[in-house]
């Protein structure tokens, strides 16, 4: 059933949202550098996030070199190893994935998909990017300060995060906190824009239940980020005060290097609660945009409407809400009151229900679809597989009794890399292959893309699947080297070497992708406006790449949901959202 509330011409609702005059750039600088256009800001966000993400990728190679071949590389010592894991985690989770999904895809897709000319407050949006860039620069500067970046682990748990003995104790941790605070300020300015644009600046006919799931995912994730980042902000401020002024919010009295420290009476557990009140929603801040985008990729490339659209929307909202009441499942071994474990284990397992609904709906969308194995589709399928895998190990770790022995082993590393590392990155890559033609007007090379996909997908599996086994053996995470522990068999060491070789291979295959991005920019096949024959509004712009103001003279009017693929009797196997019903019926009449 296609729900069409507006009868062609007679029933078009009056414009309630005025067509607001935009700020027009006057020079090269305001057009490409200090631009207020969400599309330019999106590209700036994406490039910055990718650049710092490459640093994190190189760090992971160094870690794998050390883990696979301990003692071979004399330029990596234990302190550096700790700094590598810290920066790798922090960059990947916050500065790459959060910034790329919300700042990058959010900025590009939200105004285009809801039919707006730009974000509601373009100037604030521009500031958001520049504050984010500053946060990234402060973060990157820690590599060059005395003592180097902090080595406290990406969770930055006090007391060790600010005690002497932890690498980066004098400068690294301070700049880390400063960078996080800047990131949150910058993100808030952007995030407010995304939320208000989705709520208040949609075009005529674009009801909430006609939004593409991409917008639903990014919107819900942004709302969550606006409510979760405050906890990280507060934790960062307090940890910074503990380090700089000697307050004791998180620091108990303890003996440091043989002398009694100046601290007394603080609670390290308070930090963990604040951190994970942010940290768990953060997982879904990264996952929900991925859920949304992958739904659109699957529907478009399987030429079939998404199965259970309404259910998908409610699952996104439900996961978002539930993720605020599960945070202490990261703290089963922290010394919490034991019975809290029941509550948090229960809520954690309940989250599996809406998540499973989503997975079933993706699979049912594929069911008897006209599946085109394009590169974006391959990545979307890869996402489903890695996500199911990572989600199932999440059920293991959500149970207290299973979690306690597995805590701080490689099993945990394998789990979260599978579920919030590999899976969202699959979506990021698929989405880049999908929307690159809209951003540049040229297709990415297909052969290189398929090579990139197979090496990345199979490689990621070969890296992280054996890691579960290492974890079950009891191989701990965050260890510089394993030494001669009796419970670790020699096979574990050779497995580690194998994982390292695969990791380097996958890492280098990303260079093929980067080459493809640059090469296709100049030599790629021209794509035209709608190469995937997709229904959503961003493919219906008058120009490709879309011009300033997105829509030419008039905003589009939306007559239908985003998933009219393979409608029987229709002229083509897709009907764009802005195609009026009269035209459809005329076409149907002509066909029959």
């Amino acid at each position, binding site marked *: *059933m*296609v729900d069409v509330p507006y009868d062609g011409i007679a*029933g078009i609702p009056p414009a309630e949202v005025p067509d607001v005059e935009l700020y027009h750039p006057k020079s090269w600088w305001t057009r490409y550098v200090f631009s207020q256009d969400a599309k330019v800001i999106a590209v700036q966000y994406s490039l910055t996030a990718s650049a710092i993400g490459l640093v994190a990728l190189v760090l992971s190679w160094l870690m794998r070199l050390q883990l696979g071949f301990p003692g071979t590389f004399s330029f990596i010592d234990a302190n550096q190893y700790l700094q590598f894991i810290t920066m790798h985690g922090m960059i990947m989770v916050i500065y790459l994935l959060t910034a790329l999904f919300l700042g990058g895809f959010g900025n590009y897709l939200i105004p285009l998909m809801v039919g707006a000319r730009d974000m509601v407050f373009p100037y604030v949006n521009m500031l958001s990017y520049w504050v984010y860039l500053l946060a990234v620069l402060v973060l990157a500067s820690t590599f060059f300060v005395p003592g180097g970046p902090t080595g406290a682990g990406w969770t930055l748990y006090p007391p060790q995060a600010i005690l002497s003995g932890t690498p980066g104790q004098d400068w690294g941790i301070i700049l880390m906190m400063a960078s996080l605070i800047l990131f949150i300020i910058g993100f808030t300015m952007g995030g*407010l824009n995304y939320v208000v644009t989705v*709520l*208040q600046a949609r075009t*005529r006919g674009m009801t909430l239940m006609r939004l593409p799931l991409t917008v639903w995912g990014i919107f819900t994730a942004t709302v969550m980020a606006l409510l979760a980042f405050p906890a990280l902000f507060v934790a960062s401020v307090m940890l910074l005060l503990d380090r700089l002024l000697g307050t004791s919010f998180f620091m108990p009295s303890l003996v440091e290097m043989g002398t009694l420290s100046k601290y007394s*009476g603080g609670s390290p557990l308070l930090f963990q609660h604040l951190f994970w009140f942010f940290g768990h929603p953060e997982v879904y801040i990264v996952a929900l945009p991925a859920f949304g985008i992958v739904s659109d990729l699957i529907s478009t490339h399987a030429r079939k409407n998404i199965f259970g659209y309404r259910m998908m929307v409610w699952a996104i909202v439900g996961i978002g809400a539930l993720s605020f009441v599960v945070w202490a499942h990261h703290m089963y071994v922290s010394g919490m009151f034991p019975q809290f474990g029941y509550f948090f284990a229960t809520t954690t397992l309940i989250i599996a229900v809406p998540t499973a609904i989503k997975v079933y709906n993706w699979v049912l969308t594929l069911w008897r679809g006209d599946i085109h194995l394009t590169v974006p589709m391959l990545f979307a399928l890869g996402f489903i597989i890695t996500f199911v895998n990572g989600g199932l190990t999440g059920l293991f770790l959500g149970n207290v009794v299973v979690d306690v022995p597995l805590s701080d082993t490689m099993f945990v590393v394998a789990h979260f890399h599978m579920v919030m590392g590999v899976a969202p990155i699959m979506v990021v890559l698929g989405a880049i292959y999908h929307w690159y033609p809209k951003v540049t007007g040229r297709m990415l090379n297909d052969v290189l893309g398929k090579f990139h996909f197979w090496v990345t997908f199979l490689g990621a599996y070969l890296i992280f699947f054996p890691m579960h086994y290492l974890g079950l053996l009891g191989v701990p995470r965050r260890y510089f080297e394993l030494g001669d522990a009796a419970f670790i068999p020699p096979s574990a060491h050779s497995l580690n070497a194998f994982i390292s070789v695969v990791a380097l291979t996958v890492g280098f295959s990303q260079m093929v992708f980067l080459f493809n991005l640059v090469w296709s920019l100049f030599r790629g096949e021209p794509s035209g406006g709608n190469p995937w024959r997709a229904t959503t509004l961003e493919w219906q712009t008058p120009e490709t790449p879309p011009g300033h103001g997105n829509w030419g003279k008039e905003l589009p009017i939306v007559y239908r949901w985003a998933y009219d693929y393979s409608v*029987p009797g229709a002229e083509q196997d897709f009907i764009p959202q802005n195609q009026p019903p009269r035209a459809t019926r005329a076409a149907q009449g002509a066909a029959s």
Partner: protein
Amino acid sequence: MTETVLTKMVQGAGRLPGWRGIAADWASDQRAFKNVSWGKAMMWIFLLSDTFIFSCFLLSYMTARMSTTVPWPNPSEVFALNIAGRHIPLILIAIMTFILISSSGTMAMAVNFGYRQDRAKTAILMLVTAAFGATFVGMQAFEWTKLIMEGVRPWGNPWGAAQFGSSFFMITGFHGTHVTIGVIFLIAIARKVWRGDFDVGRRGFFTSRKGYYEIVEIMGLYWHFVDLVWVFIFAFFYLW
């Protein structure tokens, strides 16, 4: 897929009974919140986010206060003043609270006159609000000075738990920063009101959108929020 159902226009959605009507209103096209401008929606959502920041600060303070093994200094004693030979507990805080709540009154009046496009009265009332706010921050500074003279530091104090000083300076400092930012914006917007920017719809600073008198109300939302937060700080920090 085959069946195309044509329903009536969006006005029809408003007539659905009960919850279905509410849901249909919210989900209708263009705007989820009818008659709410972009700026006002943005301020409300920002305040929601800011609420979480202050809640985290206050909850952290309460955790510290409840879990400390050292006695917590008695706020009635710490914040007492000797005026004209009499020892009055919490007197300065009481005056500060009174001033801040009065400033909310003048702010509400400014919003009222703003919608009547009475430039002079709006600007004057906003400046009065800013003056109240500045007085509040000034008294805060006096209170900080007094405590620092008595030996209270972020890392310790003469009377008990070290977290007393840390929480006090952090929470009142963060709130005071909010008030200060509010004062600066009040003065800036009062100037624009006075100049008549909002009568001609000149492009605003900070947003690059045209400004209207509604910005006075949005400023008011922020100001009342900062005031409300103070009530919670007053209750949880000073009266507990």
